[in-house]
């Protein structure tokens, strides 16, 4: 075998494990879901193979699905915004601290060692009717009746922020950590105050990290079903809950497939628009 042929083969050998995993675990199941979405559910339980548009018609025309899709996107957007506002200062603090960066990052990763479900459920013990916060407020006499703080949209957002904040902090941290601190010093020496230097230099240079963190938070937030299940009320279902409901509860695989594909397409389109207009490529160019 010639050297060229060997060199041409090498990348494929290295890629083979990842490519087979993606094909078997992602691409093949996705094809199954697409095929399934055109089948019909029969009353007897066995699904009818074929090419039927019924599921898609229901998913696309029923107002119920549309409203929940919109509220899902809204909740994800608010969560992302809150994560950005809370995460940026934290990431800045970690990136600019001397010496103990590793410990701070480790602390940031610490919650991942506890199951996401457990972390979500912990809010019930804090915000519940007999939870820590109510007990405290009753104890010091601020309120006489326990407050109903759980099972609404706000607690869903709270739970999502709790879950997604580390992703935002890590992404922003990575981009801030890569910015030469001399740049801020240079801006200061040229007459910019610390705040002006931040706005003119550090913030624009950290936008790629902020954008990446934002995208991750938004997509993960829009696809979640555990948080609204545990912390939301009956009216706070998000779109993934509908998929869960259709497939697990009603055993309606064809409809569930159509709904999940709908969410996939909507998020895919949003990601593409995001990429196009936030111009991440443009920002990367500036970073050289």
């Amino acid at each position, binding site marked *: 075998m010639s050297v060229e042929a060997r060199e041409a083969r090498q990348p494929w050998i290295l890629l083979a494990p990842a490519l087979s995993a993606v094909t078997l675990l992602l691409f093949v199941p996705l094809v199954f879901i697409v095929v399934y979405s055109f089948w019909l559910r029969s009353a007897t339980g066995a699904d009818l193979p074929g090419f039927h548009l019924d599921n898609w018609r229901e998913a696309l025309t029923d107002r119920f699905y549309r409203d929940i899709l919109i509220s899902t996107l809204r909740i994800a957007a608010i969560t992302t915004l809150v994560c950005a506002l809370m995460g940026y200062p934290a990431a800045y603090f970690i990136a600019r601290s001397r010496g103990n960066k590793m410990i701070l990052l480790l602390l940031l990763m610490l919650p991942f060692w506890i199951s996401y479900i457990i972390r979500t459920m912990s809010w019930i013990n804090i915000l519940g009717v007999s939870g820590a916060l109510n007990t405290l407020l009753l104890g010091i006499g601020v309120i006489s009746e326990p407050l109903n703080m759980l099972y609404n949209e706000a607690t869903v957002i709270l739970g999502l922020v709790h879950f997604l904040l580390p992703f935002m902090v890590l992404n922003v941290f990575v981009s801030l950590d890569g910015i030469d601190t001399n740049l801020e010093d*240079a801006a*200061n020496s*040229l*007459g910019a105050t610390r705040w002006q230097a931040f706005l003119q230099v550090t913030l*624009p240079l950290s936008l790629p990290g902020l954008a990446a963190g934002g995208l991750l938070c938004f997509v993960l937030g829009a696809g979640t079903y555990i948080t609204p299940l545990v912390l939301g009320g009956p009216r706070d279902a998000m779109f993934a809950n509908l998929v869960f409901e259709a497939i697990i509860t009603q055993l309606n695989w064809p409809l569930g497939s159509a709904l999940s594909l709908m969410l996939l397409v909507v998020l895919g389109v949003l990601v593409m628009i995001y990429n196009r207009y936030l111009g991440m490529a443009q920002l990367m160019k500036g970073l050289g």
Partner: protein
Amino acid sequence: MSSVVLDNIVKRFGSFTAVHPTSLEIPEGTFLTLLGPSGCGKTTNLRMIAGLLDPTEGEILIGGRRVNDVPIHKRNLGIVFQNYALFPHKSVADNVAFGLKYRDVPKSEIAGRVQAALDLVQLPDVGGRYPRELSGGQQQRIALARAIVIEPDVLLLDEPLSALDANLREDMRVELKRIQDKIGVTTVFVTHDQSEALAMSDRIVVMSAGRVEQVGTPEEVYNRPASEFVANFLGASNILESRCTDTGRDAVQLDVPVFGAVPVPVDKAPEVRPGPAKLVLRAEKLLLLAEDAEAPGMVTAPAVVETVDYQGQTVRYFIRAGDRQLQAINMIDGHPFAKGTQVTAAFRPRDCAGLPGA
């Protein structure tokens, strides 16, 4: 343009003292170099003048005004960093214009001043490009343009040439000096490279371990080193233990083993008193001659060539004279001496300097 005065400044980081009490006066328009090995406190001094670090003790005056409590953005300084520190997301013109936006410069004037600065650094056509599209040397020129366009009171240069490769560094050295001469701004230059310091400075401050070893013109620190450290740091020197036998009006008599009596001019050995002393002999002042050569007016000793380090134009020898190994850097006339050759090592007493002994 302003003078800079450091009045007994000290910088401590925890229990570590980076700069021991240091006083310096930098007259208006001077090109002053802080020279020393890494960790000697030269950059710490520069950063204190810049306002990037606060002195633990002492006062810093710029143009007669105490600036200890003046934040960096109000000090009106131009700083050029070792890694250029250009803003990667801004065009070259925006980089240069950055400082003007924070001064009361009318918008209509900004473009003209930016262009004038780019002309001064001889890169008139790159305003529309981004820093990453320029070579290292060009980026360094832009960093300089950005620092001087604001007409700073003091220009601070933090090892601005050390990231460049050797040839470019020498070009930039000449260029930097030309620009500094032209605008006449008081300049503090930090470097560990003795040839940069000697070539560019009006005055050199040699530092070691947080202390000033010597302040003087390049010729003074080179020819009349005030300490063994300075003698060794600026060029290669042979330090020979000797004994002062007599201090005359014109010369100090040093008795050097193997070589014998050496009358060192008194202005090059001002501190030497009768007793133990050291003779500083620059490697390029130690001449190797054929074994039987005459050397009128020179002090000589027989020696053997031990190592030959050929460098094209010059050659560096390590020779043994008696029990001492000495270094000699000579121009090559014909062929260099081969290893093992018996030679005569010779030098003129007036090329030497004397330091007090231990």
